[in-house]
């Protein structure tokens, strides 16, 4: 009992000393290299507010073409919020306000000319919890192409569905039961179905919000392989709580802390020789 208390106090005081050292906690500017040439997505001075509370503070970040960028950081640090600004999923949240400049190539994401439906067709998303529709496996994948009129005929639609499922690595497992409900698949299969659904409308960017957090290690490994394959054709932004996962799948890693972007660097550099003290503290498990 007393040992536990002492342990807790120790941790607390460690954190306190950590907080009291100004050069370690105050994030002035993002260190590393957040900007790249000819980016797919460009965010400048990006801030997000939920009501009166500011969730993201003046972030500058570029995401390159065919890059896999991982976003890591403790819970509530704003990484998911940032992710959801890219396809404007924050629009559905009451009281959410976004400021700053967001460009998808040349197009202003929050501009008046931007059609949010078209934006989301170009920026696909995979969610934390697999969320197949209560429809058949086929209809789950065919949903997007049907909405956007991508298939002129039934044969074309079949092709799109087959290709999407193949690219998501699910085809072999489900080709004989396409008419069965998507909700009947296992968790890992459901998530791959959701990835197939996302790539069925040929997006340019795929956002992944902790795509493996509800999956077992084998299903996780399968998804990670898939991300590596998908990176050849898509730009991928992945939010993850697992630092190993970030290290395995991403080219660059961005570390968020309390709504601020602390460090962006080559993944290898982040996990071997981080520039910022906060990043180092996080990846060595001092807090999280």
């Amino acid at each position, binding site marked *: 009992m007393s040992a536990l208390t002492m342990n807790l106090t120790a941790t607390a005081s460690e954190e306190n000393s950590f907080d009291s050292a100004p050069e370690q906690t105050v994030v002035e500017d993002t260190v590393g290299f957040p900007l790249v040439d000819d980016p797919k997505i460009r965010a400048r001075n990006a801030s997000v507010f939920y009501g009166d509370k500011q969730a993201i503070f003046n972030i500058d970040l570029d995401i390159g073409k065919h890059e896999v960028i991982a976003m890591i950081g403790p819970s509530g640090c704003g990484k998911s919020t940032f992710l959801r600004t890219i*396809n404007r*999923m924050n629009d*559905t949240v*009451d009281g959410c306000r976004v400021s700053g400049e967001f460009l998808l190539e040349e197009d202003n994401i929050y501009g008046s000319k931007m059609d949010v*439906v*078209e*934006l*989301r*067709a170009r920026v*696909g*998303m995979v*969610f934390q*919890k697999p*969320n*197949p*529709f*209560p*429809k058949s496996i086929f209809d789950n994948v065919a*949903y*997007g192409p049907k*909405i*956007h009129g991508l298939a002129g005929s039934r044969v074309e639609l079949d092709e799109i569905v087959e290709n999407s499922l193949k690219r998501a690595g699910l085809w072999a497992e489900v080709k004989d039961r396409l008419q069965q409900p998507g*909700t009947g698949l296992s968790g890992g299969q459901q998530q791959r179905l*959701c990835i197939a*659904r*996302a790539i069925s*409308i040929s997006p340019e960017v795929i956002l992944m919000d902790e795509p493996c957090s509800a999956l077992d290690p084998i299903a996780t490994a399968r998804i990670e392989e898939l991300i590596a394959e998908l990176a050849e054709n898509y730009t991928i932004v992945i939010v993850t709580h697992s630092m190993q996962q970030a290290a395995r799948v991403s080219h660059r890693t961005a570390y968020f802390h309390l709504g601020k972007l602390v460090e962006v660097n080559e993944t290898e550099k982040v996990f071997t020789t981080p520039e910022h003290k906060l990043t180092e503290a996080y990846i060595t498990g001092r807090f999280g």
Partner: protein
Amino acid sequence: MQTSNLIIALLVMSALAYFFGYQRSRGFARQLGGVSNLHSLPTYYGMRVALWCGLPSVLLLFVCLAFEETIISKMLLSGIPDEIRPTSIAEYNLLMNKIENLASGALSSEGVKPALLDAAAALGYLRDMSQRLLTGLAMLVAGGGGFWGWWRMSAQLRARQQVEKIFKGFLLLCASLAIFTTLGILLSVIFESVRFFQQVPISEFLFGLEWSPQTAIRPDQVGGSGSFGAVPLFLGTMLISFIAMTVAVPAGLMSAIYLAEYAGSKVRSFVKPALEILAGVPTVVYGYFAALTVAPLIRDTGTSMGLSVTSESALAAGLVMGIMIIPFISSLADDVINAVPQTMRDGSLALGATHSETIKQVIIPAALPGIVGGVLLAVSRAIGETMIVVMAAGLAANLTVNPLDTVTTVTVQIVTLLVGDQEFDSAKTLSAFALGLMLFLVTLGLNYIALRVVKKYREQYE
């Protein structure tokens, strides 16, 4: 002591028993060095003694009260001389009533047979005696029970479990009350229906196309021979329910979609209660709205278009009934639409679907089983609805599906058959029970299906 006073006295004794039990357990706790050494908290010990005191005595009281009247009547009857001894149940009831009135002084004793006066006096005496006996007995049981419970106490006694068990039984009793009532209703309807089907063949009732329940009461009376074909009634019921559902399902569903998906929290907090007020309007009010406002409106409109519309039309009743049912459907559909997980919406929106595409293609299909369940519940409500149709649909049992014509429903006929002076052994009156039984079975079936559907839907997401 009067029964109400007796119950109060028993409650007071139980409270005292609680106090003594509580005190004694505190005493044990002191000896053992603290309440934590007792098996249960002192309140449980107190509760246990109180239950020992109150429960058996109250049970005894109710059992005695249930048999009191029968025993007293039997005793009175044995003292009545043979020449006025009743020979039938009706006579027996009359006699008992007379004695009762004599005893209470409501009937003057002039010119009454002395045997009856004796009986009336005996009734007063017997009642008095039984009252005293009961008081003594109940007090004795309460005191004895309380003492037994108090005396058997020890620190190891599992008072908490015992009290829990009794409360479980009590809750079960309350829950079974509704079930037994349903069973009682069903049995009473079945018995009368069986009597009806002894007079009218069941095939005529189920498949006959003519409903005209007038039967001759006396053999010499000129009256209808009576025909009991229920088909026109069920057709009328179905016609009106159908009209009601064509109003209620689209309106209810759309308003639910608006409330769940589009309305802001301010609009929602105003519109949802307003809609639910519709459910609180008494159906008789809907009835005269239908009969005085909607029916003439339909008649006038129809006439101006050259249609022949009766003043009491199926359309008027159906429309108003539909409006009455809107809140049932909208409220249930609103719940199931809200129960569709947000991730489902996000998934669809993130694919670039618009809000209405998401609703049509993802949310409604996902919520469909729940919506169907709600609609089926509303249908059974429409079938059983009485007041609106009594006032607005009419009484003529026409075999028609023309909504502008007068039709009648099962519930309307039940009402008209049972209103006023009735002979309770004629086929006319008994047919009401057969109709009631049919109605009960139909709505029971619908409710069962609806609950199964709703349950299946819940399993899908939990």
